[in-house]
């Protein structure tokens, strides 16, 4: 029977792992750019030791800690809740904290900033447009009365009412859907799948009375009709949200199929 004891130092930890063959080394290629200084994109390569459970974010942080402090990356919660560490990993928009190195089945991992976002530096992109489009959709319940005053009752919903919008409320605004959207690549004014899915989330909520307002906002030259239903947004969502479906359902309201 194998006896596992806690190693006393990090050196010992590495020695144990090397002898047991658990530690693997990958090549991490990080896209480096600084548009403000006019630097074009180059790729820096780093050898990073990884374990079975190492995430791409941990690999990047290893580089930051030990090999190159200047790598720019945005991250926070490390558990796919905050939506900060979105980036292109081996060509696919993914959350770095939610992607394990082992699941990529490659010894070379390339990380790049998300498409369809202005680059700030290296892997950090500017979220201004996404947040502004999100706010434009009025992401809150609109109605005259309130359930928080002492004389009012809570707005009761059946499980079926909740089911209509629940999955769309899981959005963490990571921007992966917008990065994967082919329309956003050419139409910079397009609201994008994130904003449209949020519009649907509130339109489908039977407590909300702001449907007409939101439908007017999305029924624009660069609004809902620009979606070509490629479905890439739904493919990359780390929270299982299906923005492509939300867009089609929202179209139902505009065309009068849904009331």
């Amino acid at each position: 029977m194998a006896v596992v004891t806690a190693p006393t130092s990090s050196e010992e930890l590495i020695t144990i792992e090397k002898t047991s063959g658990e530690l693997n080394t990958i090549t991490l290629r990080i896209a480096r750019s600084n548009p403000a200084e006019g630097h074009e994109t180059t790729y820096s390569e780093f050898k990073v030791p990884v374990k079975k459970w190492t995430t791409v974010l941990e690999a990047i942080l290893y580089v930051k800690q030990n090999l190159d402090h200047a790598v720019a990356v945005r991250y926070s919660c490390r558990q796919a809740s905050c939506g900060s560490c979105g980036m292109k990993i081996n060509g696919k928009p993914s959350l770095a904290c939610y992607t394990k190195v082992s699941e990529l089945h490659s010894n070379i991992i390339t990380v790049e900033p998300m498409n369809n976002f202005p680059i700030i530096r290296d892997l950090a992109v500017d979220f201004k447009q996404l947040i502004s489009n999100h706010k434009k959709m009025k992401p809150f319940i609109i109605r005259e009365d309130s359930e928080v005053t002492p004389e009012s009752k809570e707005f009761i919903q059946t499980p079926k009412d909740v089911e209509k919008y629940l999955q769309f409320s899981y959005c963490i605004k990571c921007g992966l859907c917008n990065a994967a959207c082919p329309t956003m690549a050419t139409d910079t004014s397009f609201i994008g799948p994130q904003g449209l899915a949020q519009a649907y989330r509130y339109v489908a909520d039977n407590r909300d009375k702001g449907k007409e307002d939101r439908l007017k906002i999305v029924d624009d030259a660069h609004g809902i009709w620009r979606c070509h239903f490629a479905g890439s947004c739904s493919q990359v969502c780390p929270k299982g949200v299906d923005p492509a479906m939300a867009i089609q359902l929202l179209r139902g309201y505009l065309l009068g199929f849904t009331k």
Partner: protein
Amino acid sequence: MKIHYGTALGAVVLVAVHILMRMTQNFGQSLQYQNVIANYHFLPYALMLEAVLILLSVHGFNGLRVILLELKQGSGYEKMVNYGSLAAMAILIAYGSRTILMAGMGVS
């Protein structure tokens, strides 16, 4: 965009009627000069051709407008594309209507 969907559906129906009309006789025969001219002399059919012309022009140029708007953005450019498409649409409808009217009236 509702215009785009509406014109597409309308055009599908009317073009289907137009194609089915070819089947009332031998296809080659239906394209003979006197048969083609007879289509224009028959008022309901001439009106249907006019409707097809309008539907397809609106649908086609609106589609082109949307493609151009997706390619590039900017208020000046967008205005130019919108008015340009509208003008092209009007010119095509005017030219097509002229053909239908002249053939209907027997002017060559």
